[in-house]
């Protein structure tokens, strides 16, 4: 399996604070790569650098084998993302939102395809409802539909199950597994729900205070005689 994401010596300094410090990791094609860390560990900053929202202070990012700094548009065309809570255009309907973002992604899909995407996240019945009437969980699901509408090869998800009820979490878990196992998409996902990560991630990267603590296949990191992910995570980041 080839590397889809390759990060080398990545750092980001905000005034006095070093949010990400000399971080290096790789993400393999077709796998679900969990990204863990305490609040303020640097997860969101790292994800924002992968999506060109934040400029790194130092380091290199390669995605799909291309340097991100010089191939931004070409790379972003193949990425779908949910960044923290996906606040959408509240005065537009779910359908108008997904259509608008599909066009921004450079595609002009037919209505049936957009409705399929909404159906995939359980929102087809509310397609014409304005987003300001949606709960946080519904916005989260709509955000996911928008991230997938242009059929990306790499899906980057920052806390995608925030605000979801247990059924919603299970639905998203199944969708992520389907995207990875059936459609061969690469998923890079950060979450606070360690039990969820344990169920879906093939590989794992744990960071603390902006630095890498551990990286590797979940099966190797969590042998049955060792411990649960929660115990392991806490032992590494305390």
């Amino acid at each position: 399996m080839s590397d889809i994401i390759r990060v080398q010596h990545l750092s980001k300094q905000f005034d006095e604070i070093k949010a990400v410090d000399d971080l290096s990791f790789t993400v393999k094609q077709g796998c679900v790569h969990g990204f863990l860390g305490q609040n303020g560990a640097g997860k969101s900053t790292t994800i924002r650098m992968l999506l060109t929202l934040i400029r790194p202070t130092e380091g290199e990012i390669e995605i799909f084998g291309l340097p991100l700094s010089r191939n931004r548009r070409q790379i972003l065309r193949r990425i779908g993302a949910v960044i923290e809570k996906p606040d959408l255009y509240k005065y537009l309907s779910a359908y108008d939102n997904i259509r608008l973002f599909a066009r921004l992604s450079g595609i002009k899909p037919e209505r049936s395809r957009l409705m399929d995407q909404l159906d995939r996240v359980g929102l087809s019945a509310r397609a014409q409802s304005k987003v300001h009437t949606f709960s946080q969980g519904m916005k989260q699901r709509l955000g996911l539909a928008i991230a997938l509408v242009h059929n990306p090869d790499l899906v980057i998800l920052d806390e995608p199950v925030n605000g979801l009820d247990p059924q919603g979490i299970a639905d998203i878990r199944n969708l992520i597994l389907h995207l990875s196992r059936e459609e061969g998409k690469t998923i890079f996902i950060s979450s606070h729900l360690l039990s969820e990560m344990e169920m879906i991630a093939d590989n794992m990267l744990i960071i603390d205070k902006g630095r890498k603590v551990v990286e590797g296949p979940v099966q190797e990191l969590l042998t049955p005689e060792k411990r649960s992910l929660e115990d392991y995570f806490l032992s590494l980041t305390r």
Partner: protein
Amino acid sequence: MFLNLLRIELYKIFRKPRTYIAFGAIAVMILLIQFAIKVQGKELIQFFLGSQDATFEYEEGKILNGYFVCFFILNTLLIHVPLLVALIAGDLVAGEANMGTLRLLVTKPISRETLMLSKFSASVVYVMMLLLWMAVLALLGSIFLFGTNDLVVIKETGFQIIQSSDVLWRFFAAFGFATLALICIAALAFMLSVFAENSIGPIVATVCVVIVFTIIQQLQVPMFQEYAAPYLFTTHMLGWKGFFYVMATPENQSIPGSVENPWAMVKSGLVLTLYALLFLGVGVISFKRKDILS
């Protein structure tokens, strides 16, 4: 891609309820002025004629016509329209940051420059539509209600009469110039919007800049008049009035098609264009370098 983005930006602007506040406000203000003039127009004319009433031989009924009413409306409203423009242009980037949609936009395969230029272009279209709306209500509405005749322009130094056949093009030119002036305001609000995370800040800041500059320009302090006023964009925003200042013959008859000081108007147009480009340039470059943390 640019046209696609422009369409999307216009779609977003015109689906927002607040967009129609400006159109509604302009309609209400114009209709109120037209109603007031219809009811008490003679008193208004007497007020304007003031002390020169005795020396000015012209029928009041002829002064009070659609062109005069439109000229009066432009003088009254073009001071307030910048607020309505700031309402939309100040929201373009900051509003998206506040809503949380900016981060989603920037992760799309679009260059940041193209995104910014499409947003600004959408605000230019909005300004043009606002002025068109104003022109329809103020000019066509007033002509419909009051008819046409020669336009009497009341200046500090006296009166000028512009023949009715020579008036209409001046209004079109004035609306065109006003569009440029308001684009300059839109560029200022747009630039300030790049530095803010909610739209109230840039909207209020834009209005404050316009108010402060206008006060500096109107204060009869020699230092301000000599060193500040000529360089403030607010001074040049009033350039549209130049289209209604005509050259006159020695017998004090206005010369059709003439403009008293065309160079001053060209200069004002250039200053406004330069300011708009400066504000736009600073906005685009700053956004290109900006970390999106919202």
